């Protein structure tokens, strides 16, 4: 996948980009499903899924300058990370607790960190990445304002994108981050993936407003709500936010509505708090088959090609799993690691 920096509306996306987007969503879905299977087989200890959120994530990634702009993701962002350039094998390594790039096996899977892609390491503690993303965006602006970089230089990060769930906006951390973004007019995009649940709790137990994005006005930032299962709609909304950031016009709170199609994690039993019917209803709105059909309808993809993609995604998943499977486990003493960075930084 080529790293692009194209800020253009969905209507002007090239066919190959559209296919890339579809491929990434599909691959994420297959990898994610495989993780569930591996967990059922007792081969991995834990899985937390992004199934149902791939369309929105891929759209978000494709709208920024991938690999250059800062990203502070959250645990469900598998599709986003694939779109940014995470190797599939690395994902599989992390599932097995092996030497992945993100943490060398120290962190649970889904705690992404890719320095070469400007994806900053996160924790499991929800929302902590959001004020840090304000700091990343602050650094972007600081460099521009103090003349250290040219604001037009596309080899430099020009914004910080951060993701979180709707429930996580209840944290004080989120308020402080959004407030910084507003007061300091930061090039930040807060991308809320509202999947209707925070483990068992529903949005009305988190907030007394209909949309997280309704809170944008409280911070003096732009806000928008978009259908998270409509990849091109999310993409267009993101492009607006990206242009705002690049142009120095401040932050955006973008909320994509979607649905968590799986239990919260492999430890969860969602039968205690939601009906099977509700899930089926949302399955029918799944963004992946929807985009597939759209691409076929507009002639970007044929049925045969789509079938091909399916086969390739499965093959790529197999390959990644096998490669990761063959890799050794970390040595016990690696727990000690390096506690402190050494020397003076230049």
């Amino acid at each position: 996948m080529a790293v692009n920096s194209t800020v253009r509306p969905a209507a002007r996306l090239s066919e190959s980009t559209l296919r890339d987007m579809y491929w990434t969503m599909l691959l994420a879905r297959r990898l994610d499903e495989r993780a569930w299977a591996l967990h059922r087989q007792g081969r991995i200890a834990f899985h937390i899924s992004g199934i149902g959120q791939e369309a929105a994530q891929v759209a978000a990634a494709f709208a920024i300058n991938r690999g250059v702009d800062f990203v502070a993701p959250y645990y469900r962002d598998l599709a986003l990370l694939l779109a940014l350039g995470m190797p599939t094998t690395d994902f599989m390594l992390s599932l097995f607790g092996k030497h992945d790039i993100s943490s060398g096996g120290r962190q649970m899977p889904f705690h992404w960190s890719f320095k070469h892609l400007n994806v900053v390491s996160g924790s499991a503690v929800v929302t902590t990445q959001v004020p840090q993303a304000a700091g990343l965006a602050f650094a972007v602006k600081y460099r521009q304002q103090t003349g250290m970089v040219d604001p037009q230089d596309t080899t430099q990060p020009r914004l910080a994108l951060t993701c979180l769930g709707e429930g996580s906006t209840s944290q004080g951390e989120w308020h402080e981050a959004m407030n910084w973004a507003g007061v300091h007019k930061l090039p930040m995009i807060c991308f809320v993936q509202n999947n209707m649940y925070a483990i068992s709790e529903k949005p009305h137990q988190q907030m007394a407003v209909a949309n997280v994005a309704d809170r944008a006005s409280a911070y003096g930032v732009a806000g928008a709500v978009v259908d998270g299962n409509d990849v091109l709609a999310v993409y267009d909304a993101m492009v607006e936010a990206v242009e705002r950031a690049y142009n120095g016009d401040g932050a955006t709170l973008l909320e994509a509505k979607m649905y968590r199609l799986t239990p919260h994690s492999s430890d969860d039993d969602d039968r205690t708090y939601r009906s099977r019917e509700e899930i089926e209803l949302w399955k029918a709105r799944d963004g992946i088959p929807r985009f597939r059909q759209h691409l076929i309808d507009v002639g970007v993809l044929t049925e045969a090609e789509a079938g091909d993609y399916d086969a390739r995604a499965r093959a790529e998943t197999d390959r990644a799993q096998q490669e990761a499977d063959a890799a050794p486990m970390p040595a016990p003493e690696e727990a000690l690691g390096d506690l402190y960075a050494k020397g003076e930084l230049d």
Partner: protein
Amino acid sequence: MPEITLIEALRQAMDEELARDPRVFVVGEDVGPRGGVFRATQGLYEKYGANRLVDSPLAELSIVAVGIGAAVADLRPICEIQFADFIYPAFNQIVNEGSRMYYRSNGAWCVPMVIRVPYGGGIGGGLYHSQSIEAYFSHVPGLKIVVPSTPYDAKGLLKSAVRDPNPVMVLEPKKGYRAIKGEIPDGEFTVPIGPARIAREGRDVSVFAYGMMAYYAAQAAETVAQEGIDAEVIDLRTLLPLDQDAILNSVKKTGKALIVHEDMQTMGYGAEVAAVIATDGFEYLDGPVRRLTGPDVPGVPYSHPMQEFFMPNPEKIADAIRDLAEY
């Protein structure tokens, strides 16, 4: 007497206290219909309803702060923090507020609240689902901290905590939720906050531990007993205020002290136990005070081999007892 798990004991304690006192309520993330992510409140929502089992917004600071306000207003909140690792957003409210209310108001206001916190590693939780937090909170005068390692203590201490007029943190060794089983009597009972428990009497070496490590220490003591080493195991059980007498009495008998905790060593809870011994038990000592703890790294790694490297276990404890016995 029926044998139950640690978590069932905690559930029973809450059930009984909810039934006993209408001011008692439980507040936290997913404590309602979901019954808690560890199932500590399973069935209670159905029994006591949404007023008493309160699903909170995903925000630990306010879970605790609302608890403080409600306790000040003479309710009896039981606040659940989903994992110990997520308690820090509430640090300010616990340290600066709840624990100081009584002292700062010259005794006018008190804060009868409970904060339940599943903690500890060895469960594949990595850096952010494995933490021990007792070191931070045992430096907070005004707070009480208990750590049960048996179902009996779990039920009895939690019930005492609910009835205590002070904020009480209940640290629950989550690896033991289902692994630790034990008998409890049928009727009503409580376990007093304060006194440590002699888990095993012995004459050669004193082992001080709590939570999962107390459970392991007892196993290790049985192992070394077969080799002729008679270890005394003290389950500290209440970390704040610390039962100094229990520590000193034991060291007086054995002359040797080993402290075990899974938390990192530097400024871990063992430091205070060692300091108490080095000051007031100095004349009893026949050897150095030893600590067997997690290493000084930022947390328990996820990958299994690294996790096992980090965690103390019965074998490592037995080795440390042998070592010290030989001194």
